[in-house]
């Protein structure tokens, strides 16, 4: 029985949640919009908590298209940053507890993002999940989908390209 005993679940959860917090909590615009992230294992769900200030069409009312775009871009960026961070955290190369925006690896930068508005955003919470379809040394391509009440009826989808942080800059 030389196999290493698995770590206690609480230790694993604490480490992962601390890493996720470090990634998200330091971004003022994400806090301003009211975006939080839920984690199940390595799977992230972005949650946009509805607030009256997010409205862009008061008559319907509907979410401002810019809020939806910012939400999708944030979900894509954090997913990408999270995937880059995951191996560093799990392997112990980075100490999750001491991570803060200053010590985090640099985040990818958006090159372009294309947003399709599929349904008008209702005045209630929205959710988004991103999928990294290509993650290379120079750039990554990410798809992201947002929904509100029904997972099968997305309100918006987007594809974006992101410049990966250059290792030399770290």
């Amino acid at each position, binding site marked *: 029985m030389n196999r290493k005993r698995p770590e206690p679940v609480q230790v694993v959860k604490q480490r992962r949640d601390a890493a996720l917090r470090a990634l998200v909590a*330091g*971004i*003022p*615009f*994400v806090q*301003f*919009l009211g975006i939080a992230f839920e984690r199940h294992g390595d799977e992230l769900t972005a949650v946009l908590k509805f607030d*009256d*200030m*997010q*409205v*862009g*069409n*008061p*008559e*319907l009312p*509907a*979410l*401002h*298209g*810019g*809020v939806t*775009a*910012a*939400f999708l*871009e*944030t979900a894509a960026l954090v997913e990408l940053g999270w995937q880059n961070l995951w191996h560093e955290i799990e392997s112990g190369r980075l100490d999750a507890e001491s991570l803060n*925006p*200053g010590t985090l690896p*640099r*985040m990818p*930068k*958006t*090159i*372009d*993002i*294309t*947003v*399709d*508005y599929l349904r*008008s955003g209702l005045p209630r919470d929205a959710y988004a999940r991103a999928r990294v379809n290509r993650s290379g040394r120079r750039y990554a391509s990410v798809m992201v989908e947002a929904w509100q009440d029904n997972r099968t009826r997305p309100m918006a989808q987007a594809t974006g390209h992101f410049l990966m942080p250059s290792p030399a800059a770290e």
Partner: protein
Amino acid sequence: MPDKVGIRGAGQRRFIDELPFCRAMNMVLEEVGEGTAVVSMPWDDRLVGDPVTGVAHGGAVSSLLDTCGGVAVLSHPARPSTTATLNFRIDYMRPATPGQTITAHATCFHLTRTVAFVRTLATDEDKANPVATATGAFVVQT
């Protein structure tokens, strides 16, 4: 996604003020022409997307561009009554300089019975080097 709230009736500045998100972002409608619009957004620390460099979040810039595009659509001579964004593609050329006002220019260069086509440009105080450009299709009701 601006709508028909008083773009021509109640005064141009009020139009933006009546959209809660634009008000929250302190956007200002600077100019509106026949299918063109200029909207500015003063610097605010809440806009920051990268706490290390202090650079504005891409989503803040795209919100400004989306708003400006919507205003340009509503100001088109065909006078659509409402509009909503259908598709929007944003290209980020360079980070906006922290502390500077970001200004968007939009032109609605074609409008059919159902769709408006828009181009937009965002600059900070260095007007010669664009921060971002975007093209969009908006649904309209005439």
